């Protein structure tokens, strides 16, 4: 029976011309299956730097960027989340579907499509071509990862494929830049167009796959040999014993490195800040301005900036995990643990990325099809130790735990303490998930399906760009939110200003507020200074460091000690332990609260989450303080 038995009024219309010299920028959508390299291409076309990594589901919302053609026309390029078909099952697929069909009011309806397919798996990826071409928009079919295809001995006849599909086809390597000129040609409307062809509308998957198989056969597609290195690496990383062991060793090694190798770099930044501080102090006349700059800004914001090298090292590690393709394997290994608490391996990917920051992690839960699983993951993500907690932990651990080696010279006590804190956050997350999934978020199971990407070498360029972006984010936070909070703190430390002298720290405005709060936090082993730090940390966790830096810097008794020593003298070991536990559990982050509100569509969940985490933090800190007493 001919294929048109199930095609009614089918076919793509004749290839459309772009209206030349149109006024408004025309919108072009980039679509394709997950992990086919859409965002890599988007970044190359627009010069933007949206996040890319080697696992399915990195992009979960649409991004737009402007591409300027050589003739001066500007096009709006819309990068979309990956889809397997036009039958959306999860939130991110729904976004892609709605943009493509013009159902979203915040994004213009695309007038042309760049369909990005993985050329190393053409048979299956071509299935998506059928529904996309049926949209009737001018479409360029981009066969990405051309370098992989060639290296692994695959090939195909582009002209034949183009003829079969009735659309232009380009073999591209978005990563290396090969063939991207063809994309520009298509967008400029100067690409040679094949004769349009009637295509069947295929609603059912087997027919669609059969069609894709026939088309790739017509194009003499020879599939590349399976990636040898991926198999070899998997036999280690997915080995029942070696696999988890390798993971553990790598994690410990990273922490050890952060503490040992990063320490000199931290000292160097510290030295730079001190030097510039002294230089500035010498140049400025005595007075309020000098006090503001030295005690406020330098002591405050500077004490956060010294942690930049360590935070970057952490991001380097996360970057390697994400870009290499290992993350999907970690999710696989973790799936059983996740199943025990009622979640699935897919929840593990957002949770892992929450080690960097909870905000993108909460967004990436959009790939989870089951809404209740997704909400449970959103609610537990802020327990994971984000990079803003890291400096707080590092400061307190360094102030209270001596640098002593355990297990020969393999592990130091400080590394152990840091690892313990990371585990503490993870345990809190898992226990909370268990409670949620057996009560208010109970649900039936959705099958866990996860595509394992081939391993790739993380490129120096991509890792470098990530670190550069992270440095900017870190410094921007230090220069805006943290600076602002620190200046406000400095002012309230100087009020009431009488007889040309600032008040004693404890009788200043800040001191009064802190001492009013003190009775409530005394059971946790905190004094009023820590209390002020807890308030400012609501803006962003690491602000507590700047706050304590400023308070200790303004207090004549602790001025000369340096932050770490001052903290050591100001807190009992019980109080220090309690402070660590408090930071592990509390949801002190305005951005996270905002993103939870947006993703869950209301205030109910963020309020519940904030209350729960605050109560847990208080109770945990109370217990911690009394354990060490």
């Amino acid at each position, binding site marked *: 029976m001919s294929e048109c038995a199930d095609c009614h009024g089918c076919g793509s219309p004749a290839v459309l011309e772009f209206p030349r010299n149109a006024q408004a920028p025309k919108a072009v959508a980039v679509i394709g299956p997950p992990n086919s390299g859409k965002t890599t291409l988007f970044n190359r076309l627009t010069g933007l730097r949206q996040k890319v990594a080697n696992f399915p589901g990195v992009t979960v919302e649409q991004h737009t960027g402007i591409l300027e053609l050589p003739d001066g026309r500007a096009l709006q390029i819309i990068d979309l989340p990956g889809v397997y078909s036009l039958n959306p099952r999860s939130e991110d697929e729904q976004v892609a579907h709605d943009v493509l069909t013009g159902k979203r009011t915040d994004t213009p309806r695309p007038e042309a499509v760049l369909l990005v397919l993985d050329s190393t798996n053409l048979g299956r990826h071509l299935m998506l071509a059928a529904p996309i071409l049926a949209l009737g928009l001018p479409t360029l079919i981009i066969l990405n990862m051309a370098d992989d295809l060639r290296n692994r001995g695959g090939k195909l006849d582009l002209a034949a494929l183009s003829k079969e599909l009735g659309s232009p086809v380009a073999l591209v390597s978005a990563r290396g830049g090969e063939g991207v000129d063809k994309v520009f040609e298509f967008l400029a409307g100067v690409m040679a167009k094949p004769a349009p062809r009637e295509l069947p509308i295929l609603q059912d998957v087997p027919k669609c796959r059969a069609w894709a198989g026939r088309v790739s056969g017509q194009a003499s597609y020879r599939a590349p040999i399976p990636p040898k290195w991926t198999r070899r690496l998997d036999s280690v990383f997915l080995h029942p014993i070696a*696999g988890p062991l390798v993971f553990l060793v790598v994690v410990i090694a990273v922490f050890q490195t952060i503490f040992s190798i990063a320490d000199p770099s931290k000292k160097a930044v510290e030295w730079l800040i001190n030097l510039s501080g002294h230089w500035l102090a010498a140049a400025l006349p005595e007075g309020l301005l000098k006090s503001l700059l030295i005690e406020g800004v330098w002591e405050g914001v500077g004490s956060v900036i010294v942690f930049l090298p360590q935070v970057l090292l952490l991001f380097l590690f996360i970057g390697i995990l994400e870009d290499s393709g290992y993350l999907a394997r970690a999710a696989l290994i973790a799936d059983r643990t996740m199943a025990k608490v009622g979640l699935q391996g897919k929840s593990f990917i957002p949770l892992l990325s929450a080690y960097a920051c909870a905000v993108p992690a909460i967004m990436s839960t959009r790939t989870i099809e089951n809404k209740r699983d997704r909400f449970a993951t959103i609610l537990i993500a802020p327990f994971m130790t984000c990079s803003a907690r890291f400096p707080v932990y590092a400061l307190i651990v360094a102030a209270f735990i001596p640098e002593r080696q355990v297990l020969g010279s393999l592990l130091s006590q400080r590394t152990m303490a840091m690892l313990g804190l990371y585990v503490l956050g993870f345990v809190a997350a898992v226990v909370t998930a268990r409670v949620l999934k057996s009560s208010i978020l109970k649900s039936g199971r959705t099958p*866990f399906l996860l595509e394992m990407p081939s391993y790739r070498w993380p490129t120096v360029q991509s890792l470098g760009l990530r670190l550069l972006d992270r440095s900017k984010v870190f410094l921007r936070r230090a220069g805006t939110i943290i600076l602002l909070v620190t200046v406000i703190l400095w002012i309230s430390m100087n009020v009431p200003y009488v007889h040309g002298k600032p008040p004693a720290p404890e009788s200043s405005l800040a001191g009064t507020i802190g001492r009013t709060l003190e009775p409530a936090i005394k059971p946790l082993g905190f004094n009023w200074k820590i209390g002020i730090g807890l308030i400012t940390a609501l803006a962003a966790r690491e602000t507590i460091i700047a706050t304590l830096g400023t308070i200790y810097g303004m207090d004549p008794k602790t001025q000369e000690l340096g932050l770490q020593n001052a903290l050591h003298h100001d807190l009992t070991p019980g109080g220090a332990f309690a402070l660590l536990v408090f930071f592990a559990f509390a949801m002190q982050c305005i951005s996270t609260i905002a993103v939870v509100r947006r993703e869950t569509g209301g205030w109910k969940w963020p309020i519940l989450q904030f209350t729960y985490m605050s109560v847990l933090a208080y109770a945990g800190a109370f217990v911690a303080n009394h354990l060490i007493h």
Partner: protein
Amino acid sequence: MQLSSNSGQPEVPSVPLVDLRRGDAAVLDHIDLPGDDARRLMELGFLPGTTITAGLSAPGGDPRVFQVDGSEIALRRETARRMMVRKPKSAKTPRIS
């Protein structure tokens, strides 16, 4: 959803996909899951008539990676139990696990 491959070969009893051991290959016969879930599995390449090879797994054998249609997809046991496959005739004597 009725999705069987009606190849003319003599009847080989179908077994659940979960019974395949590492390195075993078999042809998918049908998927015994609700329409939506079956559809997503098919979009990922698990189509009746396709050869599936069992690959490595997480410690404990769950989930397992299956090679199908040029990709590697991880499935939980609970899903693989509902997918019936037929081993090719040339396969070794059936093992009971």
